[in-house]
């Protein structure tokens, strides 16, 4: 009797779904009452500090002599995303792979830092950070990983200082050709966005504005996240990951006023980095002077730094050993989360390991 079998199957399915729904509801209550999970747990030391910025050196077996300096974005969000939780941390992965891993935390800037510029970050702060990495590790060379905005900043430094012994450079989701920077490039176009007026009126760009800008980029993201949470509420591992990620995701960071002005004007509106017209500290930034081995990693669904705008470094850098990989995921899931641990981290660590022997 097929009808009876179908009906029995439907009842069984309904019962299973009902149980799942009850588990979800119970976990939702637990989630609401749960304390904020701890993030950024890999043991580390502050080896250098200047104003709000900190340079961390992480505990690791340090089986490789050449240290790795990780330069993330300034403003927008905190770097805890790179060391989210044990088992889902890029920092932890790099440390376990034997790298002497350093991370530059730019810090959270206040009104007193409104005079900070891209110039100052690249020509005054980064040189000191690199020097501290070399001094602390006792190495003669280092490798640099630039992530997001950290890539154009650090690659500008590398291009301006060919005497600095950078053994290898990795650009992870870092925008280079801003003409291909997607929606942000359009919204920040000088025809529609008067950055001078914005900065002169509000000063530092408030964290709430940064939040709105990024939310606008994917308006359905919050709905998707909420729905995914609901479907996975019966999975404790997913819930733990969600808690950690949402703690990071709700912590937006403001932009210092003059930094934002220079960033929007010279990078987004005038696209000076690839046009060869960018000058920092009075000196030109010529990407052809980047001659070390180069790995560029783009994310297929990156709306912040679309693959084309990241890949441009391959075309403009002077390196002979250069490769580009495009991995699944978005701007964040490229480096954080389960998919990143499968697709991205081993690619980056294997590539570096082969060049830092």
């Amino acid at each position, binding site marked *: 009797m097929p009808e009876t079998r179908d009906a029995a199957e439907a009842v069984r399915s309904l019962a299973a779904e009902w149980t799942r729904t009850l588990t979800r509801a119970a976990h939702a209550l637990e989630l609401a009452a749960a304390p904020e999970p701890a993030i950024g747990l890999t043991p580390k030391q502050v080896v250098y500090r200047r104003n709000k910025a900190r340079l961390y050196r992480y505990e690791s077996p340090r089986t490789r002599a050449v240290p790795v300096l990780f330069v993330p974005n300034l403003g927008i969000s905190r770097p805890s995303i790179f060391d989210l939780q044990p088992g889902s941390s890029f920092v932890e992965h790099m440390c376990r792979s034997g790298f002497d891993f350093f991370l530059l935390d730019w810090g959270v800037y206040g009104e007193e830092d409104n005079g900070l510029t891209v110039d100052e970050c690249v020509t005054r702060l980064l040189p000191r950070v690199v*020097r501290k990495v070399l001094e602390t590790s006792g190495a003669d060379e280092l490798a640099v990983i630039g992530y997001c905005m950290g890539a154009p900043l650090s690659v500008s430094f590398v291009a301006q200082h060919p005497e600095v*012994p950078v053994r290898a450079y990795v650009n992870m989701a870092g925008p280079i050709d801003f003409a291909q920077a997607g929606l942000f490039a359009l919204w920040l176009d000088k025809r*529609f966005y008067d950055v001078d007026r914005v900065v002169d009126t509000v000063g530092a760009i408030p964290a709430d504005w940064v939040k709105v800008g990024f939310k606008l980029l994917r*308006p359905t993201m919050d*709905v998707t996240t909420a*729905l995914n949470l609901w479907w996975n509420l019966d999975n404790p591992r997913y819930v733990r990951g969600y808690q950690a990620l949402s703690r990071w995701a709700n912590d937006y960071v403001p932009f210092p006023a003059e930094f934002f002005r220079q960033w929007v004007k010279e990078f987004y509106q005038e696209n000076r980095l690839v046009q060869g017209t960018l000058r920092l500290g009075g000196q030109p930034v010529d990407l052809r002077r980047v001659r070390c081995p180069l790995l560029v990693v783009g994310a297929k669904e990156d709306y912040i730094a679309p693959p084309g705008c990241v890949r441009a470094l391959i075309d403009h850098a002077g390196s002979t050993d250069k490769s580009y990989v495009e991995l699944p995921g978005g701007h964040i899931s490229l480096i954080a989360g389960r998919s990143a641990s499968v697709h991205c981290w081993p690619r980056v660590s294997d590539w570096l390991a082969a060049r830092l022997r």
Partner: protein
Amino acid sequence: MTAQNPVQDAFEIWKKALEDGTQAWVRALGQTATPQPPPGAPDFSQFWRPILGQGMEIWQKAAAQGGVSPEFAQQWKAFLDQWIEVWSKALGQAMATEGFAQALGRYLDQSLTAQAPLRKGMEQYTDQALRTLGLPSRAQVVGLASQLVALEERIEGLEDRLDEIRRLLGQTTRATDRPGETGERRAPGGRRASRSPGGPAARPTTPSQEAR
């Protein structure tokens, strides 16, 4: 409606109910619910109508292909995912237009115009209140913090110069002890391994930096 597929029929009813509901909302908001609105009057339902239609199509196609299985939760999830994806695409397309960027810019401009006097007034009022209480104003605190930041920078600049002098002294001493050796280290690959990237000797300075 088709007698063969009850699911399709159910969703046709649902779709119609949604459309009727929206028309009611439009009427309540004072918009005409006629199919052809007079020129200049926005028809808000036009925006979601194609998106809703697409969502319905996706669901109907899925239902027509396999009917409804007992795994209705999975089907519902798939439907929601696809519908959100359609929404996301539609919004993405709308936001990727110059018209949207222009509207966004205009909105920001208006908001700044409204904010500027308000902000200035608030600052003046707060400063006055703090002065009355004998407390430092916000601008004074920020100014003090900026001076500390600048001081830190100057100390670090001095440290850099000291390091450089120490390095040069070391080089000179080694060159005196063992003539012929420059003291420079060579990194694998033949490049000079500088220990002071961007140090005073290597770092270009602008007039404004020197003034600090």
